[in-house]
């Protein structure tokens, strides 16, 4: 029996966080503990992915209570795949943070390591849980650690931005709890697989209300326009590695929760127009916002918001092709967005400013960094043969297959967004990497820990390259995951057992 493996991605980081607090005097011990734990969990989740792909969803009934009564942890293809990518990226970001020195900071010691490990535990639990209330707990675990991380150091700008972030997230958590209360009142269960049976039996009106409420809750977390306003205000103020990990993981967890609940609880057979409109708005508002920005980090935050729209687009189609595209895009986007924020951190460290106009006057950043930026930026813009192209192609094909005026209009918006992404990235390139500036860079001599930071950034970029290199198998895996999502029965049978023996 390998089901117990399921608890490892949640339990190991939590235990390590406790240990990490205990050894707070020794930075070396904390570093070793953090990287060691994440490596171990990454290995476990890779095993989970292989097992889930070969044998179907793995299920663990926590505490031995069987499924609708107890809490179950479930790893199917979608959650295991996202877990592997998320952990690989969070490991790279941790190494970067250690190199940069964010991890330890000045005295008094900041609780970076424990908070980071708890964040990873929360992310893992959100991916693996098969229970709606447990999902709420996972979100809280993840968000509470992110409040700590985003407010680290607590200077003036940081507190102001941290406040916005904290209050918005708290509000969405309360709305989530409200939704759980209402769903429980309507169905009498919070187990996702069980809800998959009971929610479709509810009257149409109640179903729509619950569906929209969950959409809003996860829309706030995933920064869907018009619920995105908090993100570009709060993320850029945090240190680079923290921004990178929040941008790469938190929005994707929100998106994962949206995909999971909408496909499992509210099966549809046709395109869902409200989500389609939200996707188009997200694409356009995000990228136009990015064009107006003068600050590298804010610009990247708006690009992040914009590209959430691609994933919503795939979900709104409710076809195997669309969901395949969403899964592929999420995998690609986790890696590319984290890499870009890390590179931005290095550029800001090199030149001492995040303003595009002042970056342009500074001597260009070194060639290696330029190369990494080019890879990540072109991938995000969807230039073949990089990972973004693979994911966008899958989405566009799904859109064309679906047809219809609304879908085609959205396709046009998606293409326009890709072009504007390229334009925005070219602006950053011209300011940071093109020759012309004379002002000497701020980094005097060698930046401390530069090799580690460069290595970690290269690692994050390489994950994206690996996605492109393994595009064939990965696309087939995503397609199998999408088929599972739409069929629903695989997930439900794995959790609840044979439908014939289930008490009707």
């Amino acid at each position, binding site marked *: 029996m390998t089901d117990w493996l399921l608890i490892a991605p949640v339990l190991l980081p939590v235990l390590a966080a406790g240990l990490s607090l205990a050894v707070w005097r020794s930075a070396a011990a904390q570093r070793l503990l953090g990287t060691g734990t994440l490596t171990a969990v990454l290995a476990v989740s890779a095993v989970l992915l292989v097992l889930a792909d070969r044998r179907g969803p793995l299920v663990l009934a926590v505490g031995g209570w069987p499924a609708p009564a107890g809490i179950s942890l479930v790893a199917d293809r979608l959650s295991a795949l996202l877990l592997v990518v998320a952990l690989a990226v969070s490991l790279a970001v941790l190494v970067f943070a250690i190199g940069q020195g964010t991890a330890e900071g000045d005295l008094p010691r900041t609780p970076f390591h424990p908070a980071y490990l708890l964040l990873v535990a929360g992310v893992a639990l959100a991916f693996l849980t098969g229970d709606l*209330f447990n999902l*709420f*707990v996972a979100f*809280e675990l993840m968000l*509470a650690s992110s*409040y*700590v991380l985003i*407010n680290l150091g*607590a*200077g*003036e700008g940081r*507190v*102001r*931005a*941290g*406040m*916005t972030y*904290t*209050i918005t997230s*708290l*509000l969405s*958590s*309360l709305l989530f*709890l*409200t939704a*759980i*209360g*209402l769903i*429980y*009142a309507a169905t009498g269960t*919070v187990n996702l697989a069980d809800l998959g049976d009971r929610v479709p039996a509810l009257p149409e009106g109640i179903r729509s209300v619950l569906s929209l409420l969950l959409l809003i809750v996860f829309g706030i977390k995933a920064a869907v326009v018009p619920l995105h306003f908090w993100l570009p*205000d709060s993320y850029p103020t945090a240190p680079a590695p923290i921004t990178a990990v929040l941008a790469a993981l938190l929005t994707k967890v929100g998106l994962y929760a949206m995909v999971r609940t909408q496909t499992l609880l509210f099966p549809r057979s046709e395109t869902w127009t409200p989500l389609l409109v939200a996707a188009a708005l997200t694409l356009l508002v995000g990228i136009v916002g990015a064009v*107006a*920005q*003068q*600050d590298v980090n*804010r610009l990247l935050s708006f690009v992040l918001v914009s590209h959430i729209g691609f994933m919503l687009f795939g979900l709104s189609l409710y076809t195997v092709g669309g969901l395949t595209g969403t899964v592929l895009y999420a995998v690609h986007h986790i890696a590319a967005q984290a890499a870009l924020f890390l590179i931005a951190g290095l550029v800001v460290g090199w030149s001492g400013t995040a303003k595009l106009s002042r970056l342009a006057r500074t001597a260009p950043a070194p060639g290696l960094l330029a190369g990494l930026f080019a890879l990540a930026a072109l991938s995000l813009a969807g230039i073949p043969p990089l990972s973004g192209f693979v994911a966008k192609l899958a989405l566009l094909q799904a859109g064309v297959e679906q047809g219809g005026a609304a879908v085609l209009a959205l396709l046009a918006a998606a293409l326009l967004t890709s072009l504007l992404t390229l334009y925005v990235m070219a602006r950053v390139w011209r300011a940071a990497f093109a020759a012309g500036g004379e002002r000497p860079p701020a980094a005097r001599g060698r930046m401390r820990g530069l090799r580690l930071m460069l290595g970690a950034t290269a690692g994050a970029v390489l994950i994206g390259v690996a996605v492109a290199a393994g595009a064939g198998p990965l696309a087939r895996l995503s397609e199998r995951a999408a088929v599972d999502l739409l069929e629903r029965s695989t997930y439900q049978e794995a959790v609840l057992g044979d439908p014939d023996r289930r008490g009707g």
Partner: protein
Amino acid sequence: MRALDLTTALVVGGLFAVGFHLLLQRSLMRLLFGFLVLGHSTNLLVLMAAGPPGDPPITGEGHAPETFADPLPQAMALTAIVITFGVTVLLLALVYRSWRIQGHDEVRDDVEDRRVGEEVLES
């Protein structure tokens, strides 16, 4: 179909209204109170989902299962109370920090937003 307790429903509705009103204020202290009130109203809502009150479950005192109160929403509300409590303390610390740094507890506008807006208007 369970009967809905009108008093609780009205209380929950009222608390939600008060909470959201406070949340929309500019003073951080009021924001904090708004969050507290909203937290309570949400917990009450979860408890309401349990249906009408009943006998204590699980204790094994020989009541008929139909008369038991539903224990699951109670467990959920307890978890939520603990979480809200912890986060409220963090929020209070943030409010205090903000007051120490700025000398007042108003929510500040985002400087960068303003600047970008002005630039767009000028050009």
